[in-house]
C-alpha cells in the first residue's frame, strides 16, 4: 500500500500555486485514483463474483431444469431436461405433476413457510426495535456501571446461534426452567404457537443487543445542546422524545431495521435446531434445505424465489422507507 501514495501526492501537490493547470491536474489525479481504485477493488469483486454470482446464476439455470425422477405418466426413470417454469409453479401454486400437492409433501408447504417467515420477521423485528430502543436509551444515560451494561449486551450477540438454540431448547423443555418459573405445563416445542413464540423469544434475546448498539450509536450523534434548547423552551420528556430523538435517530434506526429484517427473512438456525421446522415453524430457508436432497433443481427454484423475496423487501426499504445504508457507508468526510 505504501507505493501508491506518492503518485497521488505528485499529481495533487504541485498544482496548488497556479490557477491554470489546476483543473487539468485534478483530472489527472482523478484518473490516477480511478486506476488505483480498480486495481485494489478487482480481487474483492472477482472473489465475490466467484462465491456469489456464479452460484446464483448456476441456481437460476438449474431452476429451469426438471429434476431426475420417476415419471408418473410412464413409470420410467427420467433424466430431467428443460422444465420451463414448472419448478416455480410447483412452489408458487403448490402444483405436483399437474395437480395440487398432497398435504405433507414439501410442495404443499410453500405458502405456510412464506407466512411463517414473515410472521417471524415482523414479530421479532418489531420486538427487537422496541426493546433495542429502550436499551439504547438506558445505555446512553450516564450512570455508574454503564460500561458493564454495554459489555453485558454483547454476551447474547457473541454466543453462536446454534448454541443459543440449544440453550433455549433446554430452557423451554417440558421440565425446564421456563415452565417452572411461570408455573405452566406447556410443551413449548410440541405445538404450533408455543413453538413459534419459543423461536421468537430466543431470537429476540439473541439479536436485540445488535439493534440496541446500532440505535445507541445513532443516539450518540445527537448533540446535547438540542435537548438543552428544547428543555429551555419547555418541551416535556415525551415531546423531546418524539420531536428530537425519533427524527434525529431515524437514519440509524432505519438502517438497523433494514439489516435485521433481511437477516430475519433468512432465519434458519433457531427453528431448524429447536423444532426441525415442525409445528409450522418451517421458514423458507428450512424448506430449501429440506428440498435439496429431494431434488436440486426445484430446491434451486425455491432458493431463487427466497432470494427474490429478500431482494424485493430490501428494495422497498431503500426506495420507499429511506433506509439509506449505501449512503451512510459512502458519505465522505469525518463527522
Amino acid at each position, binding site marked *: 500500500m*505504501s507505493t501508491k501514495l*506518492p503518485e497521488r*501526492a505528485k499529481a495533487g501537490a504541485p498544482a496548488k500555486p497556479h490557477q491554470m493547470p489546476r483543473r487539468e491536474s485534478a483530472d489527472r489525479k*482523478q484518473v490516477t*485514483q480511478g486506476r*488505483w*481504485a480498480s486495481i485494489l477493488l478487482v480481487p474483492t*469483486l472477482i*472473489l*465475490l463474483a466467484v*462465491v*456469489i454470482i456464479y*452460484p*446464483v446464476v*448456476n*441456481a437460476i439455470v438449474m431452476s429451469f431444469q426438471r429434476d431426475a425422477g420417476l415419471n408418473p405418466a410412464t413409470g420410467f426413470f427420467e433424466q430431467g431436461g428443460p422444465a420451463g417454469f414448472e419448478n416455480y409453479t410447483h412452489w408458487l401454486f403448490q402444483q405436483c405433476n399437474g395437480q395440487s400437492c398432497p398435504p405433507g409433501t414439501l410442495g404443499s408447504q410453500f405458502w405456510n413457510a412464506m407466512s411463517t417467515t414473515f410472521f417471524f420477521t415482523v414479530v421479532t423485528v418489531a420486538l427487537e426495535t422496541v426493546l433495542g430502543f429502550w436499551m439504547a*436509551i438506558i445505555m446512553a*444515560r450516564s*450512570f455508574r456501571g454503564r460500561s458493564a*451494561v*454495554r459489555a*453485558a449486551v*454483547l*454476551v*447474547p450477540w*457473541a*454466543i*453462536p*446461534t*446454534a448454541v443459543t438454540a*440449544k*440453550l433455549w431448547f*433446554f*430452557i423451554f423443555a417440558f421440565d*425446564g*426452567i421456563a415452565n417452572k418459573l411461570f408455573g405452566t405445563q406447556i410443551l413449548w416445542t410440541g405445538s404450533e404457537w408455543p413453538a413459534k413464540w419459543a423461536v421468537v423469544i430466543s431470537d429476540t*434475546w439473541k439479536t436485540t443487543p445488535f439493534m440496541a448498539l*446500532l440505535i445507541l450509536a445513532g443516539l450518540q*450523534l*445527537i448533540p446535547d445542546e438540542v*435537548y438543552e434548547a428544547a428543555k429551555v423552551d419547555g418541551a416535556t*420528556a415525551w415531546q*423531546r*422524545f418524539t420531536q428530537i430523538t425519533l427524527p434525529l435517530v431515524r437514519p*440509524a434506526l432505519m438502517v438497523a431495521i433494514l439489516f435485521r429484517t433481511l437477516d430475519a427473512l*433468512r432465519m*434458519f*438456525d433457531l427453528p431448524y*435446531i429447536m423444532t426441525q421446522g415442525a409445528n409450522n415453524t418451517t421458514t423458507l*430457508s428450512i424448506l430449501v*434445505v429440506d428440498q435439496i436432497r429431494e431434488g*436440486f433443481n426445484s430446491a*434451486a427454484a425455491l*432458493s431463487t424465489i*427466497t432470494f427474490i423475496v429478500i431482494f424485493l423487501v430490501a428494495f422497498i426499504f431503500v426506495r420507499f422507507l429511506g433506509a439509506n445504508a*449505501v449512503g*451512510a*457507508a*459512502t458519505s465522505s468526510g*469525518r463527522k
Partner: protein
Amino acid sequence: MAATATLPRTAPAPARRKGFDWGQLRTYVSAAVILIWCLIPAYWMIVTAFRDTAFTFDSTFWPTHVTWDNFATVFDESLGNHFGRNLINSLIVAGATTAVALIVGVFAAYALARLNFRFKFAVMGFILGASMFPGVALVTPLFQLFTNIGWMGSYQAMIIPDISFTLPLTVYTLTSFFREMPWELEESARIDGCTQGQAFRKIILPLAAPATFTTAILAFIGAWNEFLIASQLSSDATRPVTVAIAYFAGAQPHQEPYTAVMAAGTIVTIPLVILVLVFQRKIVAGLTAGAVK
C-alpha cells in the same frame, strides 16, 4: 416507552430539589433488568454445564451437584463425540475464511475510503447487497457443484461460501474505520523527513492495526458461528462445532443430553465472550461502523 423516554445521553439531570433522585433510580432498575435479561440465560447454560446429569432439571439458581462429567462426555469419543476435532475444524474454517477476507478486503476498503472514482456508490451498494445475501441461495448450487467435483465435506466447501458474507462485512467495516483515520499524519511525517516506507510503518500501520484486528474478530465470529452452510456441506471429518452441538450424543441413547450440550456450548462460547469483553469498545465501534454517520 413514555416513562423511560427522558433525555438520552445527558449527565444525570441535576436533582431539582434536594432529596431522592427518582430518575436515577429508574435508570438503575432498568439497567439491572437489561443485565438480568442478557446474562441470566447464559449463566443458566454454565450452571447446567456443571450439573450432574441426574439433576438436569434442578432449578436451584446457584450451582448444585457440581461435576466435570459433562465436559468429559463432550470429548468422549466412545459416545461418538469428536468435539476436539470439531473445535479444530471450526478454527481452520473460521481462520482461513477470516484470513482470505482480510487480505483481499483490506485493499478494497482502502480504495473505497481513500480514493475518488466513478461507480464508488455502485461498488459499495454491491458489496452491501452481498453481505445481505441469503445463505440458502448458495447452498443448493454449491451442493451439486461440490458433489460433482468431489469437494463435498472438504474444508474449502465451507470456506468458499463463508467468504460470501465475511468478505463484504470486512470491506464494509474496514472502509468506515479507514475513513475515520487521520491520513494527513502520513503526509506530515513525509514532510518531517520520513521515507515513504517509514511513514507507512511508523504512522499508518499502528493506526490501521487496531481497526484491522477488530474487523478480523468480527469476521472470525461470523464464520465461527456459521451453521447453515456447514450443516449441509461438511462431513464427519470436517464438521465444525456449531453443527456438532446441534447433533450431540449423550450417555443415554434417545435422550437429549442437555447437560453435555450446555457444557459444549460453554466451551464454544467462553473464548468468544472473553474476546468480546476484552475488545468491547472496538467491537461496538466495528459493529456500528457505517450504519451511522
